[in-house]
């Protein structure tokens, strides 16, 4: 199928198999910030935004992105550097494997426009697994990015 969508704000066109998954397309473009952690949509390392929706790109059929806006961590870090700053300031990472996904989720949460509180933040991030930090520093980073 012919695909055309905005990728990190820029026009992107390609020819892809009908069963193509968005993760493979993204990494095939050299945007390797988006990672495959589990391949079944559970861990969140592959999180990207499609319009305003955070999705597991490893199980997101690329055809569903047609004509829409796809944002990866590279694009989000460029357009919202203060998110990255918040993660550095609050030490919201160690090995970095989950960090791309956490940043994208933080951007998605912030874009909703209202602060869901600590419990709501934890609930929103609950699908992004981290083996290193024990999560508190990630929550602190995201809370800081939300301006609280």
């Amino acid at each position, binding site marked *: 199928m012919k695909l055309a969508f905005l990728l990190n704000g820029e026009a992107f066109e390609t020819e892809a198999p009908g069963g193509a998954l968005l993760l493979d397309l993204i990494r095939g473009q050299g945007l390797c910030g988006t990672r495959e952690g589990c391949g079944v*949509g559970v861990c969140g390392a592959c999180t990207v935004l499609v319009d305003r929706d*955070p999705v597991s790109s490893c199980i997101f*059929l690329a055809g569903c992105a047609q004509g829409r806006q796809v944002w990866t961590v590279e694009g989000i870090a460029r357009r919202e550097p203060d998110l990255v700053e918040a993660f550095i300031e609050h030490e919201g990472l160690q090995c970095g494997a989950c960090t791309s996904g956490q940043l994208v989720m933080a951007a998605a949460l912030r874009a909703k426009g209202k602060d869901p509180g600590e419990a709501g933040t934890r609930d929103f991030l609950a699908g992004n697994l981290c083996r290193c930090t024990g999560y508190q520093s990630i929550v602190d980073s995201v809370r800081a990015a939300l301006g609280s």
Partner: protein
Amino acid sequence: MDPEFTAPASLEEAVGDLERDGAVAVGGGTQVGLLVRQGLIEPCRLVWLGRIAGLREIRTDADGSLLIGAAATLAEIAASPLVRSVQPMVVRAASQVGNARVRAVGTLGGHLVHADPRQDLPPCLLVLAAEVRLLGRKGTRDMPLRDFIRGPFETAIQDGELLIRVKIPPNPRDTRCCYLRFTPGSSNDYPTVGVAALADLSDGMTRRAAVGLGGVAPRPLLVELPQLAGRALDAAAIAVAGQAAATACDPASDQRGSAAYKRAMARLWTVRALRACSL
């Protein structure tokens, strides 16, 4: 095999696209994408429903029934002020399915057609006497959800058919509902047991009580509790309900618990859910 990918703009077009053998409908794609990625299904055509105007609509009928379009996402349902005011238990269950990424794109139709016996919404929709509407080349047909879900991953949907809408009739005046999910695993995970309790307490005593149970049988169970009718919803009545839930289960032992454990949890969480209804 490389499938075709279509994005029909109308229900009519979608039904046409589904007429091919091996065509599969896609809502948010969280199940279909996974199955395709793992090579567990090899559809010849993927029919994405995301472009069909009106299929995500959430509204009420003239008689007060809640109508939810099959392409409404779980996140939209969880955030809907209308659903919250008319059927808050549905909001509660929808807001706990999977994780935020699943809820952002996963649709109600896809959820129900997938028919995993551990899912959160079917027990709620069963106690609420929900009905599904199916559309195929021959037209529409309506069916109670309890007849639609036949077994693990098995529904009454036929080839070439689409689930287009869920209808939930209005509740009697003083109906209390509570959905509780118990998962010893992560919040991402399916529950060991999900209990959707409903008690119609109009007239000051129980006119009807029922629980929907997920995760403890090959399909979600609707357990009517006629033995509670005409009495107060007190501790003794609730204990009877817990026993009925335990008896109704047919659980399989797995990493979410042994059969005996699941049966015990079905009893315990039924008691807790009905207790919440009685307050």
